[in-house]
């Protein structure tokens, strides 16, 4: 599993250098939100709605407030006078909205999903806070429930919000070309109705917020387990009516994000406001049960889609409808279905395309991106259609894809689509057919028919399947990075990027060290702190290595130039004759020349000495032309996204008597441009693949007809463990992008995207004798056995 890297003569880039995060984490000396303990700190617990939809008639916290150890119970009525706004206005811009669903800081009149926060208890310990929670009396008047996104859009359906005109949150059309004419003229059409469910993120660390107020300066510090500290700062400022300098948001170590931690949550406002109100530090740590009902998730999408082809299986058009479960509030936007629709056709030449999207409000947890952000669903829909066409036309499933893939000679390939920001979607580089061929070869695609025959003869049902994806990565417009060489000789890197376990600090250290001596131990990265970086966007869209990485690269080049300029002036030589090696700048001297110590001091200087000189002294001229100090700040602006691609091939065995699916082998070939750190790239892929296997076969966030959650613990909601992972072969291609100087693309979500499609394809193939066609994810053994039973009944009916 060793990647080949594009950085051939590099010092640290492209190498498996030790991660800078590991020494603390491996000793248990990380500092996560829950590890922050301050004198006088109060512990928060949230009273949450047990109803999916109800009117709140009254809240009585008298008994809870009287419990010893309880310092306060706060409801919206208590907080509102201290807030500039009582709603979280977080919806990203889109002309598609039909309803404004900005969620309240705390629910006070109506609750619209199980788990919605109503009150906060602040106590000496979480134990006591939970005792008090049971003593708060809330009188509810239950209201009708919208529990299913399809039914919610039917005329006369109960509305998720009392008094709303309907449940239609947003509608839009994505597409291009005259798709109906294409279908009219097409000799073949294939139709699928697909149900795709994703589930929760389930970072092993749930969310957490710690806030401390400095009454002297009226300043708040909020440590938050978030992917986007700068967005949290902005929203907290808006809602609390504070200036940016009064509010610092910093991320401690973050125990995984996977999407939902990019969202801004009510609890963040409540904890910050409570700390300011009570004059005591406040900590809230989300427990796992809360994570199921209060942290955003991705759930149902229903795709009713058609593919038109010619006789050779060439795509003439794709069209259909998509219904998307939005949940009860707009906690981010319509970006998940938008991402799904734009991901669908990307690997292929699709002349005409149109999806009509309807976004439905339901009385469930709000939906926002989970690793993949809609792309797995779009890919699943496309790949299911291609499998249907292959089967209908009698063409090999790989061959039909080969005939339609965007060929390398058309790169860069400008699609007629645009991103949510109106930026053209242009596939920037890659050789998709070659990448697919690599995966097929390694998986033994050609010889599989013989193996399958042999297995069937002994009563075993094995199958192989594939799926292609193209992932939009590196979403712009920028990420801030500043670098400062301190007089101590240490190099400090500050960034708006936020680390959540992916090795962001290692990545930035590598890029900076590459230009500044190659010694990563001399570099300190401060990520995810609004007081360290004036601007920042944060972690999402597999963007940070592309955006922050390139800003770091540009800033490091400036620092390098300045260091060499100053050193050259002092050492009376030309910058071109100098090189930074470790923490020293040295003149390049012929190797065979022996020098005295005095001579040595003329030809080498430490970075610290150079920084001290550049810092300047009162009354003396500064060296060089670069101004005082050695610092550089960059926000490299890249609007266009860069597109990674890949192919997954899965081999499965289905137990046709129990419906159990075992993945026997998985091959994943991919291309994310130049690889900065092979092991980290592979780690990202493997984590994504595990998540994809979960989405395909295990993870299901169930709700009953009253929108009561059915899975609220990790025994009921099944995350993949080590025993469910198949043998995985990772194969790498490196097609550098022309869009950035490092030639890199994102990879954080790639692993998850094609897995469901590949597994569904393999299950179909294994169960060909039963005529099974998979049309939903996830698939439990119950679902698979039901499909087999139906297949058996069909063939008995035929007899």
């Amino acid at each position, binding site marked *: 599993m060793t990647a080949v890297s594009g950085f051939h003569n590099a010092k640290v880039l492209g190498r498996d250098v030790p991660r800078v995060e*590991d020494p603390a984490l*491996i000793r*248990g000396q990380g500092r996560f939100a829950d590890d922050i303990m301050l004198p006088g700190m109060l512990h928060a617990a949230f009273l949450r709605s047990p109803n999916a939809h109800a009117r709140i008639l009254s809240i009585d916290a008298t008994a809870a407030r009287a419990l010893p150890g309880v310092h306060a119970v706060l409801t919206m009525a208590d907080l509102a006078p201290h807030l500039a706004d009582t709603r979280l206005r977080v919806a990203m811009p889109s002309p598609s909205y039909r309803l404004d669903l900005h969620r309240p800081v705390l629910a006070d009149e109506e609750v619209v999903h199980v788990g919605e926060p109503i009150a906060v208890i602040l106590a000496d310990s979480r134990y006591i806070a939970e005792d008090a929670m049971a003593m708060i009396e809330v009188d509810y008047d239950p209201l009708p429930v919208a529990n299913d996104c399809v039914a919610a859009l039917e005329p006369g359906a109960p509305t998720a919000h009392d008094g709303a005109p309907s449940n239609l949150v947003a509608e839009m059309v994505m597409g291009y070309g005259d798709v109906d004419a294409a279908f009219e003229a097409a000799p073949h059409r294939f139709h699928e109705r697909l149900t795709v469910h994703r589930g929760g993120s389930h970072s092993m660390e749930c969310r957490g917020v710690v806030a401390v107020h400095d009454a002297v300066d009226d300043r708040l510090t909020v440590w938050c387990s978030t992917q986007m500290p700068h967005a949290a700062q902005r929203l907290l400022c808006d809602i609390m009516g504070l200036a940016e300098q009064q509010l610092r948001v910093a991320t401690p170590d973050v125990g*995984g994000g996977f999407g939902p931690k990019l969202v801004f949550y009510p609890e963040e406002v409540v904890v910050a406001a409570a700390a300011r109100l009570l004059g005591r530090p406040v900590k809230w740590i989300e427990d796992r049960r809360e994570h199921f009902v209060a942290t955003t998730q991705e759930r149902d999408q229903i795709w009713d889609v058609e593919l038109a082809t010619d006789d050779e299986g060439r795509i003439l058009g794709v069209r259909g409808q998509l219904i998307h479960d939005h949940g009860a509030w707009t906690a981010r936007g319509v970006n998940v279905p938008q991402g799904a629709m734009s991901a669908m056709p990307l690997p292929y030449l699709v002349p005409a395309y149109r999806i009509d999207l309807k976004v439905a409000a339901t009385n469930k947890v709000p939906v926002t991106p989970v690793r993949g952000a809609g792309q797995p669903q779009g890919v699943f829909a496309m790949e299911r259609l291609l499998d249907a066409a292959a089967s209908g036309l009698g063409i090999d499933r790989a061959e039909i894809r080969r005939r339609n893939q965007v060929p390398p000679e058309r790169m860069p390939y400008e699609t007629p689509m645009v991103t949510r920001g109106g930026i053209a979607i242009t596939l920037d580089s890659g050789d998709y057919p070659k990448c697919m061929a690599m995966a097929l070869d390694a998986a033994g695609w050609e010889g599989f028919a013989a193996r399958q025959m042999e297995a069937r003869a002994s009563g075993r049902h094995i199958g192989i399947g594939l799926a292609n994806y193209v992932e939009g990565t590196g979403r712009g417009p920028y990420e801030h990075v500043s670098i400062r060489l301190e007089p101590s000789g240490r190099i400090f890197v500050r960034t708006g990027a936020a680390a959540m*376990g992916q090795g962001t600090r290692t990545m930035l250290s590598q890029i900076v060290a590459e230009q500044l001596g190659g010694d990563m131990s001399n570099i300190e990265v401060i990520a995810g702190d609004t007081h360290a970086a004036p601007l920042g966007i944060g972690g999402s869209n597999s963007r940070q290595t592309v955006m922050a990485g390139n800003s770091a690269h540009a800033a490091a080049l400036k620092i390098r130039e300045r260091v060499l300029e100053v050193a050259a002036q002092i050492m009376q030589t030309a910058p071109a004759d100098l090189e930074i090696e470790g923490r020293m700048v040295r003149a390049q001297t012929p190797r065979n020349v022996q020098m005295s110590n005095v001579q040595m001091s003329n030809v080498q200087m430490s970075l610290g000495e150079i920084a001290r000189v550049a810092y300047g002294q009162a009354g003396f001229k500064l060296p060089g032309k670069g101004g005082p100090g050695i610092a550089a700040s960059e926000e490299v602006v890249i609007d266009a996204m860069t597109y990674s691609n890949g192919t997954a091939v899965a081999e499965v065995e289905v137990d046709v008597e129990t419906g159990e699916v075992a993945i026997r082998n998985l091959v994943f070939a991919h291309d994310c441009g130049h690889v900065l750190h092979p092991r980290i790239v592979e780690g990202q892929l493997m984590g994504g693949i595990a998540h994809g296997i979960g989405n395909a076969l295990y993870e299901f966030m169930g709700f009953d007809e009253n929108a009561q959650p059915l899975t609220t613990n990790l025994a009921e909601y099944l995350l993949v463990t080590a025993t469910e992972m198949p043998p995985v072969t990772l194969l790498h291609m490196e097609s550098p992008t022309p869009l950035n100087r490092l030639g890199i693309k994102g990879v954080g979500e790639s692993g998850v995207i094609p897995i469901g499609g590949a597994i569904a394809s393999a299950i179909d193939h294994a169960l060909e004798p039963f005529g099974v066609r998979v049309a939903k994810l996830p698939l439990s053994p119950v679902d698979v056995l039901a499909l087999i039973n139906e297949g058996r009944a069909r063939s008995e009916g035929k007899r």
Partner: protein
Amino acid sequence: MGVSDLPEGSTTRRIEVTVNGEVRSAEVPVRLMVGDFLRQNLKLTGTHFGCEHGVCGACTILFDGRAVRSCLMLAVQADGHEITTIEGLALSTDTLHPLQEAFCRTHGLQCGFCTPGMLTTLIEFLEDCPDPTPEEIRVAISGNICRCTGYEGIVAAALEAAEVLRARRAGAA
């Protein structure tokens, strides 16, 4: 036995526990989870709670040498016993346990949140099973959930560490 002879119930207890080789004592509420005792009373925050209902394995500690979930035990139950946490695994301030070293080499951790439970579980396992197959390792950590790594690096780390530990034992013998 008369009712008057029966032990009294209590809401707090003084306990004495040997943690990472040091005797620690404290007055604790009887309902305090042993994981909270380690984290809050002793400030040993390396042990993490990922679910608090005994499924995720992040809070695993060594209790009298055995891997147990610290969310499913009370601090009072540890009175008179020995506990080792992730903070107590390194052989010295400079020298990590071979398993810790292997985790760093094989990228067995990303966010590091599940790592304390993985390490403690595997340390006990490798003592019982010094020459495991990858499948045996997978079963051993099937009660520990990791959302980041896909487990590949963790299994590789356990295999590497097993080899190092075997060589050390052979050298010592």
